[in-house]
């Protein structure tokens, strides 16, 4: 197992280098730059000075190596759009709201989805099964900005139960968390339902019944445990996808989160921030998949305990 983790970490490093190169090249391949004339009416001399100051006059490979050298020392540079702080400071400030809202969305949504999927699988073709299908379809097909708008309309405008937007006080979190939870609920309801139905149709479940086990024990001990194996692998990647913020949810609920920076960094050609965000996402996905695979091996004896006699 240790050897496996080591090998995977080596491959994470290679992925990291490959992704950073691709992003860096694509970033610079797009025509234009951070100080284009129509955005920033400065004289040619000032522009040249700025470029030299930021090192943008150097050859690309030098810029790349310099930036990566900085990354190795946890120095991601200074964002052009907010020169008063480092990229790292900006990220740690903006990430908190995204992590809290998105993270809670998944942490609340996933168990709800699992419960809904279980109820659907155990009562196949009943009203609850149809409800679960409806929730799953709606959650996956209606765009999150529409859900957000509906939530605001119903709970803030009509019912006046909750504030429509904002960040610091927790009652303002409720609506965005619900908006974030839609996708985990839907995904998990679908996955859980099909995983459980699949498990329940396997011959060993008939054997369990034939040996006189109670239906409760069959479901909670055997079916759930087997169905959980595909489910755990979905969790971490989904967590990361949601907990890095959504530009739509954050815009709808006016949350000062990370989401907006994904767009603005590209729009304003904010190279250091753009690189930092992409590298962060890449790194987190790599680690998430690694952890998922480890958990998968831990709960699946066919992988944990090797080969046949």
């Amino acid at each position, binding site marked *: 197992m240790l050897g496996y983790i080591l090998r995977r970490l080596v491959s994470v490093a290679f992925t990291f280098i490959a992704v950073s190169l691709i992003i860096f090249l694509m970033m610079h391949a797009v025509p234009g730059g951070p100080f284009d004339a129509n955005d920033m009416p400065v004289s040619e001399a000032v522009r040249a000075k700025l470029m030299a100051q930021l090192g943008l006059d150097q050859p690309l490979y030098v810029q790349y190596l310099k930036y990566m050298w900085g990354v190795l020392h946890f120095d991601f540079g200074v964002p052009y759009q907010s020169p008063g702080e480092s990229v790292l400071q900006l990220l740690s400030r903006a990430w908190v709201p995204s992590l809290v809202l998105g993270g809670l969305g998944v942490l609340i949504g996933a168990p709800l989805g699992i419960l809904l999927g279980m109820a659907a699988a155990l009562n196949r073709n009943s009203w609850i099964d149809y409800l679960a299908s409806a929730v799953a379809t709606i959650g996956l097909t209606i765009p999150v900005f529409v859900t957000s708008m509906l939530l605001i309309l119903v709970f803030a405008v009509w019912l006046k139960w909750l504030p429509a937007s904002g960040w610091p006080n927790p009652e303002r979190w409720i609506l965005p968390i619900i908006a974030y939870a839609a996708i985990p609920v839907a995904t998990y309801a679908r996955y859980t339902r099909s995983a459980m139905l699949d498990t329940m149709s396997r011959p060993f479940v008939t054997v*369990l019944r034939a040996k006189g086990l109670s239906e409760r*024990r069959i479901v909670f001990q055997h079916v759930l445990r087997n169905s959980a194996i595909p489910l755990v692998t979905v969790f971490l990647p989904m967590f990361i996808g949601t907990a890095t913020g959504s530009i739509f949810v954050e815009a709808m609920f006016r949350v000062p989160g990370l989401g907006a920076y994904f767009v603005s960094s590209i729009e304003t050609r904010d190279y250091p921030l753009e690189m930092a965000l992409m590298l962060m996402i890449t790194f987190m996905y790599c680690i998430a998949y690694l952890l998922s695979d480890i958990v998968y091996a831990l709960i699946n004896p066919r992988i944990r*305990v090797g080969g046949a006699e």
Partner: protein
Amino acid sequence: MALVEIADLKVSFRQYGGTIDAVRGISFSVNEGESLGIVGESGSGKSVSCSALLRLLPATAEVSATKLELDGIDVRKARKEDLARLRGRSAAMIFQDPMTAFDPVFTIGHQIAETIQSHRNVSRRDALKEAEDLLLRVEIKNASDVLNYFPHQLSGGMLQRAMIAMALSCRPKVLIADEPTTALDVTIQAQILQLIKKVQAEFGMALIMITHDLGVIAETVDRVLVMYRGEVMEQGPVQQIFDAPQHAYTKELLASLHASFEPSRGSDNKTPALELKGLAKAYRIRRRRGLFTDYSDFHAVREVNIALPKNRIVAIVGESGSGKTTTGMMAMRLTDVSRGQILVDGQDISALSPEALKPWRKKMQVVFQDSYSALDPMMTLTQTIAEPLHIHGIGSAREQEETALDWLERVGLDRTYANRYPHELSGGQRQRVAIARALVLEPDVLVADEPTSALDVTVKAQIIGLLKKLQAEMGLSILFISHDLSTVKSLTDSVVVMYRGRVVEEAPTERIFSDPQHPYTRALLDAVPATNPKNKRERTFLTAEQIAAQTPRLTTLQAGIAPHSDPQLVAIAPDHRVEAYVTN
């Protein structure tokens, strides 16, 4: 008092577009300690009847009966507590495929102990102790280790033993065995059947043996029920069924046990149609050690020499893992060859490039075991059969279709089947289509990899008959791969026995049956179930060590070759070779 009483049992399944009557009014009873066999082909309702007895049918099943009683309890009215008693304590079941019958994420010990604890109030520790005793009683020697094994760590035979131990754990009054050996090798099948009989006697249980195989019936039961399409055709003492069958279906079943053999004509041309020379396959096994990787070789096939003469049928027989299928697939160039030559009509094709191989592909074709996955579900039968002609560009589209239609008839299917899809056919009919597709190119060589293993006995006999007929008509040379010696008896001219990747014996079929020399061949023959209850007998089973120890020993004078530390294939009579140790 009867333990099981069933009167006028009817089961139907609701499906899209109507209902299917699976069981149409059957009645039977089983007394304490009695053994009843239920024989019939797939779809005859034999399993469904017994599942109804334990209420194991899905919700789409509709069950009605004038009487459905197990151990004095009316199954139809059984409440939750009654069901818990019925299942496991009154009756226990063993299923067909032991590989899928255990929950993969729990250990064997856990699953047996859990059964004990759900029926009796005992501690975990005592339950595990009991589980270990049970494993010992089903002749699992390393019982304490096996308790901690997960299902995937055991072989099919071992799992079936563990399954029997689990069934015994609550001392059931009747043991229902639903095709308990169909998924197993012949030698393992014989061991499991003997074990079931032994524990039945020891625990004083009644037995219901559900099977499609009359040999299994002859070996295990006192009384037989013959089922066909949801109805009981006849029932009676086992000897009477075998000696004086009343019903046409029973007669047909019995006839399939005693097919006659006619040798194929052979050819004056002595160049073999297919010759494998020193053909070997080694798989590279990767073993990870930290950041590094070790490689070792697994020898699936070790340098076999097999010749298939023109216009003859040769069988390769062996258990799973013997390398028989790998050999067949290498001969077809469907698996890469590690070493050796494949001579087709005297020419080596083992190293040809895919393009250079294409004309040879026309001369050699293959039929697989699982006809369902071997046919493209999206293609009609005509398209399927015509496809090889299309690939090799033979004839116009019109002619290709005509040929395909002719072949449908030739393999015994009606021309009106032309536009049907594989899922609309039965297993036997699909195998006929697969044979038509293989033979439409009029090849010289056909490799048939267990083409009848997934089929019911009567259908199996028909497919064997069809292969024989077509072989004679076309002068085909067939390499017939099988795990079962009794299947090849009526079909093949000679038999090659493979064991652990080696050829251990090779002789004309008649000689293999009358004068087997290698201990493994004898073990295979001994495992073949009796064809009449009169001939059933106790068997002794050889371990791998015993087989090695009993390998014939010849002097250099007898063998005519130099001594060697490894066993060598030695000719002991014309056309009869056996693996033996050669010493001074």
